[in-house]
């Protein structure tokens, strides 16, 4: 099949070019800006599908491109995708047009700037997932902060400035430690390069690895966010506009987990193994803590935000297990979370647009007023609590299976999170949708508009598709996950916790 040349660069360049075009549109032509944004992001999505069709199910980087950038320091523009990043790129290109469509009539002020920042954000996010050079990775990682900061700070809710600044400072504080770790690694490795594949080949001394791993881990743990680095998340999620929350939960949080998989673990394999128990314990604490806090949230958006802490705990547990199944499950769960939590934020946002409140106690009996809304909400809720047949089930199952060889006790505690998730989600659904439609303000609320259905339907369809046909996705993830796990275990005499091999992903979903 013929493929577009420089496909990966094109995926970064398209939104950038779109942003430039949007910047040049006249101020008053708001619809034009929105159309350009939607068109460009949709074109980017279509282009990104070429990645999937041309992808071979093997380990190693594909669609690689390389160009000298700052030769004297061994810095190059080196991009490519492998099984770990492929679907995350698709997730990004998939969610961005939905966000633009979802906020079509929600954003009233400075529409042009909104579209501009969304496109810049998309370019930055794709860049993070495809960068194969530490310097390039860091550039995208940081540059992406700026549009997100503006999205929260300009179009957010009441406490938006506080949330924007907090978000920025937290993530920036984490990233700069990572930068110092990169610089030390550059000096210590003796390879005189920032090229990730080249650095992975020759790890530095184990004692130094611990420090460098910690430096990077703080950056990624804040982004994930892992307990106890999660305190920025509820503020940012709640205050951000709907599109911001969706991108934040859907893609930005994934960068933490991805950072562990792409950088922290392969670059510092000995430290990763040594510190895996710590990461796993924090992950499980996050699972249970996030779930417990979600249980008591009076605010819908806060509830979804805290549930992210719990869900991402699963992802981190799968990563910390360092087994093929666990890592595959973690990547898969990142996609699931992007879809189900993204959809939940859309749904909460649509409710907020109608009622200008997110307090659960304000609602009740909405099932009668908005039957379609209820149906889609319920489906996504089921995916969020990992009911078999939905995507969430496959991901959590793989993670727990993969972590079993690592520590059955932790898996037992993590399973508690599965039960708690059912509790807080179903209880919330009960309070919002069931019962009598008492509140007069809720009577006569309009059901979903065609535009809203167009936003939600792809997400719901994908949640079910990924639950039923998971091998379609996991077979592309697995070789890369396996290669990572082998590489890490090579460096120690210990045998792998779980023998790398085929995952029972197919069985799990059938």
């Amino acid at each position: 099949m013929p493929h577009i040349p420089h496909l990966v660069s094109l995926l970064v360049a398209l939104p950038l070019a779109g942003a430039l075009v949007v910047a040049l549109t006249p101020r008053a032509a708001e619809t034009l800006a929105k159309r350009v944004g939607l068109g460009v992001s949709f074109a980017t999505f279509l282009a990104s599908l070429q990645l999937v069709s041309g992808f071979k199910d093997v380990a190693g980087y594909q669609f690689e491109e390389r160009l000298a950038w700052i030769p004297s320091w061994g810095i190059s523009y080196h991009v490519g995708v492998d099984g770990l990043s492929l679907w995350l790129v698709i997730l990004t290109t998939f969610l961005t047009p939905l966000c633009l469509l979802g906020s079509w009539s929600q954003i009233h002020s400075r529409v042009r700037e909104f579209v501009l920042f969304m496109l810049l954000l998309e370019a930055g996010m794709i860049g993070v997932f495809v960068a194969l050079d530490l310097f390039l990775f860091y550039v995208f990682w940081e540059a992406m902060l700026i549009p997100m900061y503006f999205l929260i700070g300009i179009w957010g809710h009441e406490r938006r400035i506080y949330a924007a600044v907090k978000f920025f400072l937290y993530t920036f504080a984490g990233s700069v430690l990572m930068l110092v770790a990169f610089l030390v690694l550059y000096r210590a490795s003796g390879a005189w390069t920032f090229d990730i594949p080249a650095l992975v080949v020759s790890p530095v001394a184990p004692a130094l690895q611990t420090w460098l791993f910690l430096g990077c881990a703080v950056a990624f743990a804040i982004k994930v966010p892992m307990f106890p680095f999660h305190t920025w998340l509820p503020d940012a999620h709640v205050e951000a506009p709907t599109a911001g929350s969706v991108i934040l939960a859907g893609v930005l949080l994934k960068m933490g987990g991805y950072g562990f998989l792409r950088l922290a673990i392969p670059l510092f394999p000995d430290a990763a193994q040594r510190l895996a128990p710590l990461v796993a314990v924090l992950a499980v604490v996050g699972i249970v803590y996030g779930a417990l806090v979600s249980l008591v949230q009076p605010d819908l958006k806060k509830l979804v935000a805290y549930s992210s802490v719990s869900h991402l705990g699963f992802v981190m547990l799968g990563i910390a297990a360092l087994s093929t199944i666990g890592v595959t499950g973690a990547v898969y769960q990142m996609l699931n979370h992007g879809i189900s939590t993204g959809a939940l934020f859309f749904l909460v946002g649509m409710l907020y647009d109608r009622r200008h409140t997110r307090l659960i106690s304000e609602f009740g009996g909405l099932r009668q007023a908005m039957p379609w809304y209820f149906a889609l909400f319920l489906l996504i809720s089921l995916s969020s609590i990992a009911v078999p047949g939905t995507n969430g089930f496959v991901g959590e199952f793989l993670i727990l299976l993969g972590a079993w060889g690592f520590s059955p006790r932790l898996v037992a505690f993590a399973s508690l999170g599965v039960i708690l998730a059912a509790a807080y989600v179903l209880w919330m659904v009960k309070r919002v949708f069931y019962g009598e439609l008492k509140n007069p303000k809720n009577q006569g609320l309009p059901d979903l508009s065609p535009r809203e259905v167009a936003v939600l339907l792809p997400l719901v369809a994908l949640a079910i598709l990924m639950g039923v046909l998971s091998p379609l996705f996991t077979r592309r993830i697995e070789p890369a996950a396996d290669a990572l796990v082998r590489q890490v275990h090579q460096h120690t005499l210990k045998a792998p916790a779980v023998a790398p091999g085929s995952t029972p992903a197919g069985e799990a979903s059938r």
Partner: protein
Amino acid sequence: MNQLLDLRPVVPAAIVALTGVVVLLAQAFTPRGERAPSVALSLAGLLGALVSVLLLASGPARGAVLAGALAADGLALFLQAVILVVAMLSVLLSPGYLQSSGIERGEHYALLLFSVVGMLGLVSSLELVSMFVALEIMSVALYGLAGFDRTRPESQESALKYFVTGSFASAFLLYGIALVYGVTGSTSLERVTRALGVAGPDALPLAVLGTALLLVGFGFKVASVPFHMWTPDVYEGAPTTVTAFMSAGVKAAAFGALLRVFDAGLVSLAGHWQPLVAALAIVTMLVGNFAALAQTSLKRLLAYSSIAHAGYLMSALVAPPALAVEAILFYLVAYAAVNLGAFGAIAALARDGREPLSAADLAGLSERRPLLAAALSVFLVSLTGIPVTAGFVGKFYLFGAAVAGGWVALALVGVLTSVVSAYYYLRIVVAMYMEAPLGEDRFGRVPPAAALALTLSVMTTLAFGIWPAPVLSLARFAGRSLL
């Protein structure tokens, strides 16, 4: 010795000096009520000097001339080009601002040109006494510029304070030069290096003391803590365009001289001065950034930020010389563009002697002056050190150099204080983009010349942030002349 009478390395400074005199004369011969062509003359002179620098750079390398006092080597030419561009942008920023303050007189441009002469000399001196003379030429002109708005008490205070502390610093510098001369019997950096290489242990205390005094003197000029006390008052009181010029130009010139003295002349004492410089750098980064947090005045905030940036720059001095020079030279370019831009953006809003004083004055600027707000945001993001700006690449290199020198702690303090700085820089962005405008629009339209200067600064900031390789290789090449 056949180069003894080769005067070509002096040509750029001579052109600028001559232009200064012509500007003064033109002002004197312009009838009352008419405006002298000071801006055009200054720009032409600076451009001529820049061309001569480029010609010198394209020709063969020139060694020491005028009895070994001056050279047109890589370091000198690189920084001279930077200084001349800074001066040109400052000249472009000036007329609108000076008009709004009612102080548009030719002397302003003449003084600016004279201080450029000092700066050009400072970065090309190979000899401590010439260096001192050049420093004084630069400083005296700057004292005048700081007090140029003589009806405003703040401006007077600024000039006086700068003069007193500046003289104080000069005294330290002189004493340091005297001690180094006492130990080595020469003020020529080349001979100092040679003499220190063979000096016995009994000469060491005196040499180290001399080095420390030199460091104090330069510490004043680059606004390093604890010799920074003058900076906020002087930066705040001086006319804003002068502050822009001072903050960008003096830093480039003073760090150029600092590099030459410490990384070439006193390099054999590196084991002694490096810990000292590292300590100063840490204190400077901490004090500069934390003090800036507490500022409400924009100009004071930027003054403390400029102190903090002196700290970042110093943290690269502990690296092996080749890396230190490359990193510092690149950062000086990035910093000059950004700082000129930041002060320039504030100055560009001036109308009827009124300019934005605090972040609150900038509330809602993104709606009233979208382009200016965007430009100022780029500068602030670059000062914070975030990609894709030159400020990020610059910090990457500074801290990379510190790590290469084995000072990971310096890099850690640097990046963590950068996080602190993000808070106060972002506060300005918050005001411009996330707060509603207060009251009526009291500020002026951006003058076209200033708009040009700001555009060039933004383009430099972004271009060198995305494609820094050419400047870096020039900087590395320039650094070779030292080693």
